[in-house]
């Protein structure tokens, strides 16, 4: 794989966003229309306690990703009610066309006491071309089970041969580098299938991508595309601790491929994309989303500070 970076294309601080959001445009996810491409992202407001709430917004681009046609001015999907899994944020949202409907798999966040938060994956449906989404219920469709005890999130769904596939991550442990620091989480990529997109079968704690850094490697945001007879997965990975300030421990883009959707070969060296020497994506690269548009393959991703200053795009050269 070889990618050509087209640069940063969206900076959230240059636009007025709904829900008092002012920074962050994280985990860009594309939905292709006839004449434009809608890119959803998670942006943030600060609540009255000073903590962040993540909200979904979108921006519409022309198909060259040169011109912004529209930025959402209204709420795309409200946060969950009191006590619900998605009360304190939705990040990310994965948007999938399914016949005449647009499905959204949301990662909802709720704050806890001994650890910062937990997360589960919800389902919402749009009947207005993706302008707004309505959740299918107050609870999640994929969440903690016996061998996936917490932090079930980052769902990415693709439909191949009438089977819904979801790649997602689940938490394996909360860890602390030092007693003074708040616990950090460890999570791994897994896979579930469904015949209706609602009822999912997990493989209960199965990890499909081997670790490269160490046993506490954090793997996040899998995104999968079929190209010929091969399935390609991009994801991001980092160290479990010290990843916020130390760029050597921060997010990188990883890559794996599969021919049967069961066995994956990790091959980061052939990802064909990495951090730039300088600029907006020089410290880290994270939250990739791969998609096709008019016979070209694109990769959306975030750069430094987890997407605080926006996202960029790359196009597959070969």
């Amino acid at each position, binding site marked *: 794989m070889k990618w050509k970076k087209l640069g940063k294309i969206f900076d959230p601080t240059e636009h007025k966003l709904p829900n008092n959001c002012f920074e962050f445009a994280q985990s860009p996810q594309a939905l292709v229309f006839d004449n434009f491409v809608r890119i959803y992202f998670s942006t943030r407001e600060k609540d009255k306690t000073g903590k962040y709430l993540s909200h979904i917004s979108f921006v519409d681009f022309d198909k060259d990703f040169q011109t912004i046609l529209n930025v959402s001015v209204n709420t795309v999907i409200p946060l969950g*009610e*009191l*006590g*619900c*899994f998605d*009360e*304190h944020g939705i990040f990310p949202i994965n948007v999938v066309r399914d016949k005449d409907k647009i499905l959204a798999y949301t990662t909802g966040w*709720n*704050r*806890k*006491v*001994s*650890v910062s938060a*937990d997360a*589960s994956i*919800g*389902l919402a449906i749009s009947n207005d071309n993706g302008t707004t989404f309505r959740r*299918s*219920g*107050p*609870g*999640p*469709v994929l*969440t*903690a*089970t*016996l*061998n*996936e*005890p*917490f*932090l079930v999130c980052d769902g990415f769904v693709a439909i191949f041969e009438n089977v819904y596939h979801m790649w997602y991550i689940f*938490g394996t*442990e*909360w860890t602390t580098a030092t007693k003074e620091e708040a*616990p950090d*989480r460890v999570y791994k990529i897994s896979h579930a299938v469904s015949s209706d997109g*609602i009822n999912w079968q997990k493989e209960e*704690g199965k990890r499909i991508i081997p670790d490269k850094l160490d046993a506490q490697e954090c793997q996040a945001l899998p995104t999968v595309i079929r190209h010929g007879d091969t399935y390609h997965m991009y994801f991001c990975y980092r160290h479990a601790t010290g990843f916020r300030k130390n760029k050597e421990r921060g997010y990188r883009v990883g890559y794996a491929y599969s021919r049967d959707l069961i066995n994956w070969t990790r091959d980061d060296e052939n990802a064909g994309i990495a951090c730039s020497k300088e600029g907006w994506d020089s410290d880290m690269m994270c939250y990739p989303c791969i998609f096709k548009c008019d016979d070209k393959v694109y990769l959306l991703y975030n750069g430094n500070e987890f997407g605080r200053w926006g996202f960029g795009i790359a196009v597959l050269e070969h």
Partner: protein
Amino acid sequence: MFKWEKLGQLFNPATQNGSSWMHEYAQAPSVVVFNDFVRVFFSSRPAPENGQYVSRLGYIDLKRDDLFEIINICKDPILPLGELGTFDEFGTYPASVIKTGTEIRAYYAGWTRCESVPFNAAIGLAISNDNGETFHKPGQGPVIPYTLDEPFVMGSPKIRRFNDTWYLWYSAGKKWIANDGKPQPVYKIRMAASGDGIHWTKIGRDLINDVLEENECQASADVFFYEGKYHMFFSYRYNLGYRETGRGYNIGYAVSDDLLTWKRNDQRAGITVSESGWDSESVSYPFVFELDNTIYMLHQGNEIGRYGFGLAKLKSYNQ
């Protein structure tokens, strides 16, 4: 119509002068019968820290031919709390036990603490291979997941097996009432079925209609088969102000032929609060069991089991 004769308070942890973790509360009694004794599992609590409780699972053994004679009290909690960030980090309450082969399984509600609401709960599984003296967990997560229409607060599991099928009754949270910054959950009785007790199919609807109010809270549905019908004894209360007289838990009743359709008729429960004493304000968490041709009900009393549980005996039943 059932008619129960109350035999009185059977166990109060505060008067046992025992372990610090069994300071107060003996909640949700659940029984496994052995040759010479009856082991009653229940959840107890140490004194609160910063006003917050942690519930732990334990047991006492009662002499089989005189249930009011306590012959043994477990020394330590028999089920460990969950690891950092897991669903049962801050408590295991209540638990429902069942013997299967040489195992005893406990289905229990695990408690975690949240920011916008005080807690969340989910149902876990623990297994004992030493007659219930210690339990281990097959995994760190819950055995019944939250789903689209069961978003949170899954609690008060009750496990039973009928005709080789496992049934789990539980409470599922419907909504949180904000209540001026002291949120209170509303929960209703639901059911799941399983061939192995691990993989569950939820039936996905509330089983018991409300009688008090739309926000009535329902819990601890204990089902047993008797005289050709399935009988459910459960707890119900008002959503708010439940520490006031008349608004706390009482024992309700419903009957079914097929375990799916239930006809509620609380008057037929045949047991309610006493005029005075340890269970004069509230009765709840019924557990019905048969022992040596007598049918008994264990139940907790005032303040949701703070002063332990008592025993009643079935005097008569007629349809």
